[in-house]
C-alpha cells in the first residue's frame, strides 16, 4: 500500500494546492488589510476543521463551538492583556498593573485565576487544555448517558448562551460586553503594525496545516472509520466491543481544541476578543461554514469558511439587514440541494471532468506503448 497514515495521492495534491493558495497566492495579491481579513476568516477554519471530525465523521452536531473558540481566545487575550497592563502603561489607574476594565469595576487586585496567565507557557497549555477539559466534561456527562443527536445540539447551544451571559455579567473579570481590547504586545513584540500582521498570518497558516495533518491522521486511522461506523450503526459498534461514548468524547474534544486554537489565533490576529464570538449566532455560523464547504471534507471546510466569510464581509456591508436571512437561506439550500457542500459538488461534477481530461491527455502521447494499457482505466 502506497498510502501513508496522513493522506493519499489526491489528498496530497489538494493540500499542496491549498498551501500554495494560502502561502503564495494570497500574500502576493492582497494588501496587508485584506490579508489580515483572511487571517481573521482562517481562525474560523480551525473551528470548521474540528466540526468535520466531530459532525461530519462522528455525526455529533455541536451548536456551541463558539464556547471553545471563546475559551481559547480569552486565554490568549488574558495573556496579552496582562502584558499590555504593565505598571507603566496603567499608572493613571487607581490600581496600576491590572487590566483597565478591572480598574473601572473597582477591582483592586488581580484575581487568582488571572495570575498564571503571566506565563506564556501556561497560556499556550491553557489554550489547548481548558477547552479540552471542558469539552471532556460536557462530553462525558452527555455521551455516557447516551444523550445524542438533537438533544446534544440543543444542550451545546444552551452552553453557548450560558457562556455569553457569564462573560457579559462578570464584567470585572472578563471585560464584559466590550471584551478585552487594546491588546498590544506578545513578549515585547508589537502585534499591531503591518509587518507583525504578515508574520502572524504565516504563523496562523502554519498552525492550520498542523491541524489539517492531525485531522488527516485521525481520518485515516481506524478511529476515523469507527466514527463513520458509529454515525450509521451505533449499536453495531457497541456490540463489536467499542465504548461508543469514549469515541464521541474524543471527537468532541478534538473539535473543541481545534476551535480553541482558532480562538487564540483570533485574539492574536485581530487584536481583541469579545463575547460576540462566543454565543449562539457565531456558533451556528461556524456550522454553516462547515456545511457549505462540505462536512465530510477537511479541505472543503476551509474553502467554505473563506467563501462564506468573504461573502459575509461584502454583503453585510451592502445589505446589513439581509445578511442573516441570506446566511440562513444558504444553510437550508446547501442542506437540501448539496448535502456534501462545495466538496460534494467538486467530487461529483468537477473532479470526474478533470480526471477524464488528464486521462485523455495521457493516452495520446503514449497511445502506442503498452504501459498506458496497463495502468490506464479501460475506455468506455
Amino acid at each position, binding site marked *: *500500500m502506497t498510502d501513508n497514515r496522513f493522506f493519499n495521492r489526491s489528498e496530497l495534491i489538494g493540500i499542496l494546492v491549498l498551501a500554495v493558495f494560502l502561502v503564495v497566492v494570497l500574500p502576493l495579491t492582497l494588501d496587508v488589510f485584506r490579508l489580515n481579513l483572511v487571517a481573521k476568516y482562517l481562525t474560523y477554519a480551525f473551528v470548521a476543521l474540528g466540526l468535520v471530525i466531530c459532525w461530519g465523521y462522528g455525526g455529533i452536531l455541536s451548536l456551541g463551538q463558539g464556547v471553545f473558540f471563546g475559551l481559547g481566545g480569552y486565554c490568549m487575550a488574558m495573556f496579552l492583556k496582562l502584558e499590555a497592563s504593565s505598571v507603566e502603561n496603567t499608572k493613571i489607574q487607581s490600581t496600576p498593573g491590572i487590566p483597565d476594565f478591572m480598574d473601572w469595576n473597582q477591582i483592586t487586585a488581580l484575581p487568582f485565576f488571572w495570575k498564571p496567565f503571566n506565563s506564556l507557557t501556561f497560556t499556550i497549555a491553557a489554550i489547548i487544555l481548558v477547552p479540552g477539559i471542558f469539552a471532556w466534561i460536557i462530553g462525558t456527562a452527555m455521551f455516557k448517558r447516551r444523550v445524542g443527536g438533537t438533544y446534544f445540539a440543543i444542550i451545546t447551544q444552551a452552553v453557548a448562551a450560558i457562556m455569553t451571559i457569564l462573560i457579559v455579567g462578570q464584567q470585572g473579570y472578563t471585560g464584559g460586553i466590550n471584551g478585552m481590547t487594546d491588546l498590544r504586545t506578545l513578549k515585547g513584540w508589537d502585534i499591531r503594525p503591518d509587518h507583525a500582521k504578515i508574520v502572524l498570518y504565516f504563523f496562523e497558516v502554519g498552525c492550520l496545516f498542523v491541524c489539517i495533518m492531525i485531522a488527516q491522521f485521525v481520518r485515516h*486511522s481506524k478511529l476515523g472509520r469507527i466514527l463513520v461506523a458509529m454515525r450509521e450503526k451505533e449499536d453495531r459498534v457497541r456490540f*463489536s466491543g467499542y465504548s461508543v461514548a469514549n469515541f464521541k468524547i474524543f471527537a468532541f474534544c478534538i473539535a473543541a481544541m481545534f476551535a480553541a486554537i482558532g480562538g487564540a489565533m483570533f485574539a492574536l490576529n485581530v487584536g481583541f476578543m469579545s463575547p460576540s464570538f462566543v454565543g449562539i449566532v457565531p456558533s451556528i455560523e461556524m456550522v454553516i461554514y462547515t456545511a457549505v464547504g462540505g462536512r465530510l471534507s477537511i479541505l472543503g471546510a476551509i474553502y467554505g469558511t473563506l467563501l462564506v466569510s468573504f461573502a459575509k464581509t461584502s454583503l453585510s456591508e451592502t445589505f446589513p439587514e439581509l445578511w442573516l436571512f441570506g446566511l440562513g437561506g444558504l444553510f437550508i439550500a446547501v442542506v437540501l440541494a448539496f448535502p456534501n457542500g462545495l466538496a460534494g459538488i467538486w467530487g461529483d461534477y468537477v473532479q470526474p471532468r478533470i480526471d477524464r481530461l488528464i486521462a485523455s491527455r495521457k493516452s495520446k502521447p503514449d497511445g502506442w506503448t503498452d504501459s498506458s494499457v496497463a495502468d490506464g482505466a479501460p475506455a468506455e
Partner: protein
Amino acid sequence: MLVGHQPKEFLLAVEALTVSFDGFKAVNDLSFYVDENEIRVIIGPNGAGKTTVLDLICGKTKATSGSIQFRGKELTRMKENEIVKTGVGRKFQNPSIYDDLTVFENLEISYPRGRSVFGALTFTRDAAVRDRVHEVAEMIFLKDRLHMNADLLSHGQKQWLEIGMLLIQDPDLLMLDEPVAGMSVSERAKTAELLNRIIKNRSVLVIEHDMKFVEDIAHKVTVLHQGQILSEGTMEKVKNDPKVVEVYLGH
C-alpha cells in the same frame, strides 16, 4: 427439567431473569443453561420474548431482576462493550452493517484489537489483520467483494457480512437472531452450510422460525411463550409436546 443438575460449569446460566416494560413482563422468571459447544435454538410465537432474551444477555436491555452468568461472570452489571470482551457476540435481526464502509473495513472494525480510543488511533492494518479478513471473507462468500461499499450488497450478502463480523471477533457464545430470514432458497442453503462450519468450537444461541433449519442444527430447543419457558429439550421431544403443538407448531 433440571433434576439431574450436577455442579458443573455452564457456559451461560440464566436464572430467574425478569424484565418488565411499564409493568408488562416481556421475560418472566426465565431460567435456562447453555453448555460449552452447545447449539441452542429458541423458538416461539411472535412476542414470546425471544429477541428480548438476546437483548438482555448482550446488555442492550437491562434486566429488572435475575442473573445472567457467563463463565462465572455476572453480565447484568456489565456494559455492552465489556460483555463483548468477555466473549459474547450478537447478530441483529436486520442486517446491521456499515453501509458507507467497504466490506474490508466492515470486517476490520470487528477485528478484536485496538478497541480503545488510543488503540484505534494507532491501529495498523498489518499482515495478521489482512490475512484474517481475507480468511473470513472467503468463508462468508464475499472474497471478491472486499473493496465494494457494503450498501451495494444484496440482503443475503449483508446477513453474511454481519455473520462474518461476528466470526472475526471469535466469540465463545454466538447469538444469532433469525439468520436466514428474508433469504432466497439458495442463500438459505449456503447460510446453513456457513453456520454449520462456524458453530464448531463455540456455543451458539439461535432464534429461528424455519423449522427445517432448526432441526438441522439444534442440539436442544427452548420454546418460549409469553416470556416463559413452555418446553425444553431435544427437537423430537419438543415437537411432540402437546403444549408446544397447541401454541406454536399447531398452525
